[in-house]
């Protein structure tokens, strides 16, 4: 009998293990969703109550904006350049190279600028915000805040969320401008399109609706990066292992949320409005 019992037993074991792991994942997901709802309501509460964290927010804005400027401009320039190279190759079949500017700038404004800026800020700034908060937690600094009667959401989260909210739209505009310069370079020096024509078509295609969509998306992206980075920092287990785990979880979740929210906004904008 043992020869037939062993495989079935191991099958039962694997199924149980799988079921258990599914249960744990669902449990963790539900607890995170619940936790995030409570956390968001606390953010709203503290955003509307004194003290105003003006000084701390400006400090964080400097951190978010200044630290990301370089990486954003380089990434934007090459994104614009490579995108127009690809587009130029295809549309030169139809002899329509003069549209490179219009197509690239349109893609930058509607899709690329908010998403890639969000990814870069999440990777560069969001991860360090999460790590900083976990480290503060490990060193009892968050407990110290609490026992001094200072709410961690008010002192740590509000300035970071508002800094992201104010700075990410500026960085997105920055990305758009540098991306357009990249496209301009390729269009002028690789496909020999007249500079005036590039600009004319680009301005014709990209109107205020596109710009406001870009800004709207970037506000959502800024909010997502700020809130999630701090959330995973505050929820993390302490210790070095906790820092690594929390940072990975925070960046991965922020990336996914940016994609989902971006798709949702695009869907609403194109289908419904």
């Amino acid at each position, binding site marked *: 009998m043992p020869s037939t019992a062993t495989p079935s037993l191991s099958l039962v074991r694997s199924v149980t293990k799988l079921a258990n792991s599914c249960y744990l994942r669902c449990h963790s997901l539900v607890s995170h969703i619940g936790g995030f709802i409570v956390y968001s309501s606390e953010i709203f509460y503290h955003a509307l109550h004194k003290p105003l964290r003006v000084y701390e927010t400006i400090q964080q804005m400097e951190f978010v904006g200044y630290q990301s400027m370089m990486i954003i401009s380089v990434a934007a320039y090459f994104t614009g350049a490579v995108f127009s190279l690809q587009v130029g190759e295809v549309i030169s079949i139809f002899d329509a190279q003069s549209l490179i500017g219009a197509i690239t700038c349109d893609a930058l404004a509607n899709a690329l600028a908010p998403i890639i800026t969000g990814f870069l800020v999440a990777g560069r700034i969001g991860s360090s915000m999460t790590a900083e908060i976990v480290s*503060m937690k490990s060193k009892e*600094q968050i407990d110290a805040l609490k*026992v*001094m*009667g*200072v709410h961690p959401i008010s002192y740590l989260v509000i300035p970071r969320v508002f800094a992201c909210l104010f700075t990410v739209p500026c960085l997105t505009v920055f990305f758009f401008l540098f991306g357009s310069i990249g496209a301009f370079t390729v269009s002028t020096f690789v496909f020999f399109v007249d500079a005036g024509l590039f600009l004319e078509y680009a301005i014709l295609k990209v109107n205020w609706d596109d710009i406001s969509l870009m800004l709207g998306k970037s506000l959502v992206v800024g909010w997502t990066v700020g809130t999630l980075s701090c959330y995973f920092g505050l929820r993390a287990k302490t210790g070095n292992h906790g820092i690594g785990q929390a940072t990975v979880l925070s960046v991965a979740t922020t990336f996914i949320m940016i994609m989902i929210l971006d798709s949702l906004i695009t869907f609403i904008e194109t289908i419904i409005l």
Partner: protein
Amino acid sequence: MIAFQFKNVSKSFQNLSVLKDLSFRIAKGELSYIIGRSGEGKSVSLRMMVGLLRPDSGEILFEGDDFLQFSSKELTKFRKSVGVLFQHSALFDSLSVFDNIVFPKKEHSQRLWKTDARWLRAEAENILEIIGLKGTMDSMPQDLSVGERHRVALGRALITKPAILFYDEPTTGLDPIYAKKIDELIIQTKEKDPNLTAVVVSHDIHAAMRYGDHIIMLKNGSTYFQGAPDEFQNSTDTYIKQFLGGHWF
């Protein structure tokens, strides 16, 4: 008058039962020492007294009121009237010594423009004089030694002139000279303000005997001894004798 009273407080973490029916009292205006071996739940008890942890069962009374039923507003008000010195200082790494020391003062102030440092400078200088660290105002915490960081943390706890001070192992890990300095600061603070209630969590039985008004000894998560230092000294209990002789490791 009694400041804090623990009644049959129990607390477990996952499967680890840390406090079991712990009961003790801390009188107002006294310097109380909570002593016991490592891992007995001294820090856990202290964290309960400042509302960072809640017991699984039992009661905690603060000045006769049910502390566990405090609303978040009441808890914030209570916390603004206490100072805590954490076991690992818990200074903010991104702030200078000056900013760390004046932090609670700034936060509790109603002024809108809190960055104007002038009105705090004099107070910070006074505190630095007391803790013996003049001239380190602009240093960063990571540039200080462990003992100095402890003193800065003590300065931060003192600046709001709290009614209750909690010290979590203020001298552990320090060399005897620094440890003595911290002990002296604790005593000085108490002597300056006779109404101050101070709770010191410590391994240092000799400091407890010398300076304490009241000693609470924990063993296996409950109160093993509670009383005056003299009683403790004259106890015939073998465990206490071992503790006094330093053979309890």
